[in-house]
């Protein structure tokens, strides 16, 4: 019993520490990798065109830190807006679809087909409809993120143990209550899996969205580097994308740990 009490006390601390430690480890690991690449490039005399020295890339970022910071903020914001809306809509439509079979069976196939269309192919349409606003990018991110969320939300709701539904019904629960107290929580782990997938997709959407004529953002920097054949600039943009991507992924992971604390295995 005392052991358990100790454990209970130690847990929050371990949790807090547990969040920082991997971060620290990760940073050390990244530094090590960069150093290794640096040495490799120098040792083998790899042409900057094939692979520039990491130090040169970092130097490029530090030369115009404002530009990279603004780009990251802009791309990050686009992703965040579209992702937030996509996640909410994805869940909402997933819940609706799980209840309204007619709607699901009529509209879901269209959603599926829509996801086979590469966004870049109708960039012009997006610009025509939404202009060169941050909204346009958010819409693209939204388009890419809501679908996996809906799919997994449905999947998660289907994963509900029919016996648990019956139990709740035997307590006199309404469909609404069953949705709130059982189906949705059961679907949460699946939804988080989708969110993780969607975060990478959404970021890609934001970057591609910026290729449709935009002034700031990582996609813009990437294009600029690409057409000027500026390898250092390309790598700098990739580095920033990586930082942003990892941050998103990590944030979702943290949220998942907090929200789906039970680990997703239901009984």
């Amino acid at each position, binding site marked *: *019993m005392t052991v*358990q009490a100790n454990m*209970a006390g130690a847990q929050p601390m371990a949790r807090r520490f547990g969040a920082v430690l991997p971060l620290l480890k990760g940073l050390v690991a990244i530094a090590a990798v960069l150093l290794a690449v640096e040495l490799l490039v120098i040792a083998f005399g790899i042409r900057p065109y094939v692979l520039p020295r990491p130090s040169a890339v970092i130097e490029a970022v530090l030369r115009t830190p404002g530009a990279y910071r603004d780009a990251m903020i802009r791309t990050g914001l686009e992703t965040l807006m579209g992702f937030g809306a996509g996640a909410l809509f994805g869940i909402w439509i997933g819940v609706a679809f799980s209840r309204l079979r007619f709607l699901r069976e009529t509209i879901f196939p269209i959603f599926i087909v829509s996801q086979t269309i590469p966004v870049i192919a109708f960039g012009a349409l997006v610009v025509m409809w939404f202009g060169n606003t941050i909204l346009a990018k958010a819409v693209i991110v939204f388009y890419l993120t809501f679908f996996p969320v809906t799919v997994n939300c449905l999947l998660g709701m289907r994963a509900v*143990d029919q*016996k*648990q539904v*019956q*139990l*709740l*019904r*035997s*307590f*006199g*629960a309404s469909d609404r*209550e069953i949705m709130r*107290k*059982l189906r949705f*929580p059961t679907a*949460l782990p699946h939804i988080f899996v989708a969110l993780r997938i969607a975060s990478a997709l959404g970021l890609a959407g934001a970057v591609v969205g910026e290729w449709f004529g935009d002034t700031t953002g990582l996609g813009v920097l990437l294009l600029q580097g690409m057409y000027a054949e500026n390898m250092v600039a390309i790598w700098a943009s990739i580095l920033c994308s990586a930082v942003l991507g990892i941050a998103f992924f990590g944030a979702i992971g943290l949220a998942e740990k907090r929200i*789906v*604390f*039970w*680990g*997703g*295995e*239901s*009984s």
Partner: protein
Amino acid sequence: MNMPMTYPSTMEPAMTPADEPILDLRKLSKTFGEVQALDGVDLTVQPGEFVTVVGPSGCGKSTLFNIVSGLEEPDNGSVLRFEGQSVHAKHLLGRVSFMPQRDLLLAWRNVIDNAILPLEIEGANKAEARAEAQRMLPEFGLAGFADKYPHELSGGMRQRVALMRTFMFKRDLLLLDEPFGALDALTRTMMQRWLLEVWQKHKRTVLFITHDVDEAIFLGDKVLVMTARPGAIKLARTVDLPRPRSADLVTSPEFISLKRELLDAIEEESMKTFGPASH
């Protein structure tokens, strides 16, 4: 020590308002498409009684419970009377305490919140429900575990939480569908003894499904043996063993002779299911 002795079947008439059984099933049948699960079950349960049901796998025990808890409607022609009134099964939703074969705890709710789930659905005040559950914890051997989540509990503990949830849903009739089926034999013995203690204190009517003849005799005032599918009541035996019952009861001669009789009846039915192909 002598009060409990007189507790079971002998006390029934005194406890019932007017000799009225709490549950009365007649010619209860249930067909799923091609499969006839139940065929003319006749069964009465008196208030305060502990009735155990044994029967071969797939004979329709869970189906019977699903009907009594309101989850399924029986076939036409079946008679289902509850607390003296003829009712449709669906009217029983929310009126009996049902504990399914597995614990079915919600992984995202801690012990307390799992236990108060039925009260929450009833619309009870959450804080009050929690306080009440807190008070009940020690009795269910869960003192100090209020804030634990199901994945932090052993199988026996989870089962106790599920039982507590069932008890918190204060209905006169408790349906327990193999609550100890998933536990190992030793943990199971512990849980049986404990269940009897709790039951004796709470004085509820219990209908209890099990596969285990020892368990059926050890717990019940009355043991029902079901036939192979389609299920019906093959045999009903009153258990005239004194309460409180202790572990060494299982080696007493009365116990053994009752066990013998029930085993024979079950074996006969089991053979029908197993058939000769499976030895």
